[in-house]
C-alpha cells in the first residue's frame, strides 16, 4: 500500500521535501476559564504536549490512542483549525504555524479533512451537490454551472450516483454520507488528507468499503493520509507507519508491521491485546492485558512517564523522569519508544507487577 503508482512524479528525491508535514514539539493547551466579571484562567487541559512527528509524502501515518488522548486535537492543529500553544507545523517545508487566516487559506486547498461523524459533518439543509462543490465555491473556482460536472465527476469517483446531485444528506446512508465527505475532501486535489476517525461511526461491513475507497484514491492520486483512529486493527490495515498516543504524547512510533510484531511500549501492548482478532482460536488463546484505573485527567497529567499510574512495569524512575522517544536497544532506527523499561519479546505483561510504592502511585 505504501507503493506509490505515480512515484516518479509525486516523490521528490531530496530528503527535506520528502516530508509533507513536520510537527515539531507541538504543544496545545486549552485554558479553563471562570469568573464573575473578569474571566481568569483556573487551569489548562494539556491536550497535546511536545509531539514531534513527520508525515512523508505518499504514505499513510496512523495515529492511535484512546478517546481524549489528543490525537484529534493534534490533527486539528495540523490543519490549523486550532492554533498551537507552542511548537511548529511545517507543511511542504513552509512554516504555517503562525500564518494569519488569510495567509493560511492557500494551504487549505492542499490539506483537507474527513470527519468522524458522517451525520454531523454534512450540513442537513444543503444539497449534496452544493456540499461537494463547497471547496470550489470557497476558493472561487467556476460558477454553479461550471462546478456541476466537476462535482458529478467526483461523485462517480467515490461511488455515488451522480444523479443524486440534488438530494439532501438525510436521504443517504451512513456509508454513502462518508463517501460524500470523501468527495468533498478530494475536490481540490489536495496533497494531504487528514482523516479523523473516518470509519469509527460506520458498521463494520461499511468500514471496509470506505477503507478500500480511501486506499484506491491514494493509489490514483498519490495522496498522503494522516489517519486517526482509536481502533488499532483498522489503523494497522491502512497505515505504513503508526504513532501511538497517550495523554497528549507519542509513546511509540514504528512501521506498521514492526509495531504489531514487536510492540515495545506497555501501553501499545495493552492496546494490541484489546484489539479484535479475526481468528477465534487465536482470540481465545491470547492473554488480555487489562489496565487498571482510568485515564488520568489531562488537566493535571501525572509526572514523569504519563503512563506510570496504570503501567504494570512502572518503577520509581517512571514517576520522576519522563522517558525520551528514541530507538531502544535491538530496535531498528525507525522504531521509537518512550519507555524506561520497554517490553521484551516474549515477556508476559499479565504476570508482572509494578514496583513503585502505593503512596507515590496514588499521586
Amino acid at each position, binding site marked *: 500500500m505504501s507503493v506509490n503508482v505515480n512515484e516518479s512524479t509525486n516523490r521528490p528525491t531530496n530528503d527535506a521535501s520528502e516530508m509533507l508535514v513536520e510537527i515539531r514539539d507541538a504543544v496545545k493547551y486549552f485554558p479553563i476559564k471562570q469568573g464573575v466579571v473578569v474571566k481568569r484562567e483556573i487551569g489548562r487541559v494539556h491536550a497535546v504536549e511536545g509531539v514531534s512527528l513527520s508525515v512523508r509524502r505518499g504514505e499513510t501515518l496512523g495515529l492511535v490512542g484512546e478517546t481524549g488522548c489528543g490525537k484529534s486535537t493534534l490533527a486539528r492543529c495540523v490543519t490549523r483549525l486550532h492554533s498551537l500553544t507552542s511548537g511548529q507545523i511545517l507543511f511542504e517545508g513552509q512554516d504555517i504555524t503562525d500564518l494569519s487566516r488569510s495567509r493560511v487559506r492557500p494551504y487549505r486547498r492542499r490539506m483537507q*479533512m474527513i470527519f468522524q461523524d458522517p451525520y454531523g459533518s454534512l450540513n*442537513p439543509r444543503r444539497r449534496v451537490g452544493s456540499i461537494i462543490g463547497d*471547496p470550489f465555491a*470557497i*476558493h472561487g473556482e467556476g460558477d454553479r454551472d461550471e462546478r456541476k460536472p466537476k462535482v458529478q465527476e467526483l461523485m462517480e469517483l467515490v461511488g455515488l450516483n451522480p444523479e443524486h446531485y440534488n438530494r439532501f444528506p438525510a*436521504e443517504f*446512508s451512513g456509508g454513502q454520507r462518508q463517501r460524500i465527505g470523501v468527495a468533498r475532501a478530494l475536490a481540490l486535489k489536495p496533497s494531504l488528507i487528514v482523516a479523523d476517525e473516518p470509519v469509527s461511526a460506520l458498521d463494520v461491513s461499511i468500514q471496509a468499503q470506505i477503507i478500500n475507497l480511501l486506499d484506491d484514491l491514494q493509489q490514483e492520486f498519490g495522496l498522503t493520509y494522516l489517519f486517526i483512529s482509536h481502533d488499532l486493527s483498522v489503523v494497522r490495515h491502512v497505515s505504513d507507519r503508526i504513532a501511538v498516543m497517550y495523554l497528549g504524547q507519542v509513546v511509540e512510533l514504528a512501521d506498521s508491521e514492526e509495531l504489531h510484531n514487536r510492540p515495545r511500549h506497555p501501553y501499545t501492548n495493552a492496546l494490541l491485546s484489546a484489539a479484535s482478532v479475526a481468528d477465534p482460536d487465536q482470540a481465545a488463546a491470547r492473554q488480555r492485558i487489562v489496565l487498571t484505573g482510568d485515564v488520568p485527567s489531562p488537566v493535571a497529567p501525572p509526572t514523569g512517564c504519563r503512563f506510570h499510574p496504570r503501567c504494570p512495569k512502572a518503577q520509581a524512575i517512571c514517576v520522576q523522569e519522563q522517558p525520551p522517544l528514541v530507538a531502544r536497544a535491538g530496535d531498528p532506527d525507525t522504531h521509537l519508544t518512550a519507555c524506561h523499561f520497554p517490553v521484551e519479546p516474549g515477556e508476559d505483561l499479565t504476570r508482572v507487577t509494578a514496583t513503585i510504592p502505593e503512596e507515590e502511585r496514588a499521586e
Partner: protein
Amino acid sequence: MSADETVAASLTETATGSTAAPAVIPAGAIEGRSPWQLAWFILRKDRAAMISLGFIVFIALVAITAPLLAHWIGYGPTDQDRTNGITVDGLPVAPNSQHLFGTDNLGRDILVRTIYGTQVSLLVGVASTLLAVAMGVLVGLAAGYFGSVVDSVLSRAMDVVLSFPFLLFAIALVSIYGSGLGISVFVIAFFTWAAVGRIVRGQTLSIREKDYIEAARSLGAGDMRIMFVDVLPNVLAPVIVYTTLLIPIAIVFESTLSFLGLGVVPPTPTWGNMLSDSLDFYQVAWWFPLFPGLALLLTTLAFNLLGDGVRDALDPRAGRLSQD
C-alpha cells in the same frame, strides 16, 4: 445495519452502471425534497392553517384593492355622508342598503373604513415584523457565532430591550417624535427584534459546534460565508415560525397604539382608531365597534392559526404532541 448494507449494496450496483435504483427511494425521485418542501407537504394537510392562509391572502387582496373597492362601494374612507350617514340627532346610522356596515359618528362608511384599515394593519404588521426579524437574525447570528466579547455586548443589549416596559416606552417615543406610519413600524420593530435575536443566538450557539461548521472552516470558508451559508439555513425554521407569530403581535401592537391615539394620524382609518372612536358610541351603535373589532380579531386569529400550522410542520416533535 442491514438497512445500511442494502443501501450500500444497491449503491455499488448503481455505481457499477446497473440501472436498478436503491430500493428505499422511489424511482424517478432524483430531485431531493428539501426540508422546506417536506414542511409544505405537512402544512398543506392542515385544514385550519390552509383556511387561515386563504383568509390572509383575501385580506391582502382587500388591502391592495382598497381604492377600487371604495370606488365601487361609492364612498371614500374619509367621506362624510351628511344626508344618509347620520341621524337627525347626529348619531351613527345602523347597517342598511346604502351603508352595509353602517356609519360612524361623522357619517363615514364603516365598510370602506374597515377595508382601508386593512392596509395599515397589514403594512405595519408585516413591515415591522420583517424589520425586527432581519435585525434579530443579524444580531443573534453575530452574538452566537462570534461569542466572547461580541456575545456579551449584544446579549446585554437584548436584555436591555427586553427589560423595557415596551408599550410605555413606545408611547413615550411616539409622543416625543410624533405619530405616523413610519414611527409605528420602527417602534414595533425596535421592541420585538430582541426576542428573535435571543432565539437565533441560542440556535447558533448549538449549530456552531457542529462538525459541518468545522468542515467548512477547514475548507477555508470565511466567517461571513459560514454564518450565512452554513448556519443561517439551520436556524431558519424557528425564525419562520416566530415570524408568523410575530405578525399578529405587531398588528395588535399597532392597533393598540392607534387606539391610544398614538398611531397613524386620523382621519386615516385604522382598526385601532375606529375602535377608539367607537368607545363613546358603543351603547347606541353596536356596529361601530363590531366590524373593525371583528376584522382585527379574525386577522390576528388567522395569523396565529397559520403560525401554529407552520410550527407543527417545521417541528415534527411539536406536531407529535398536538396529535397525541
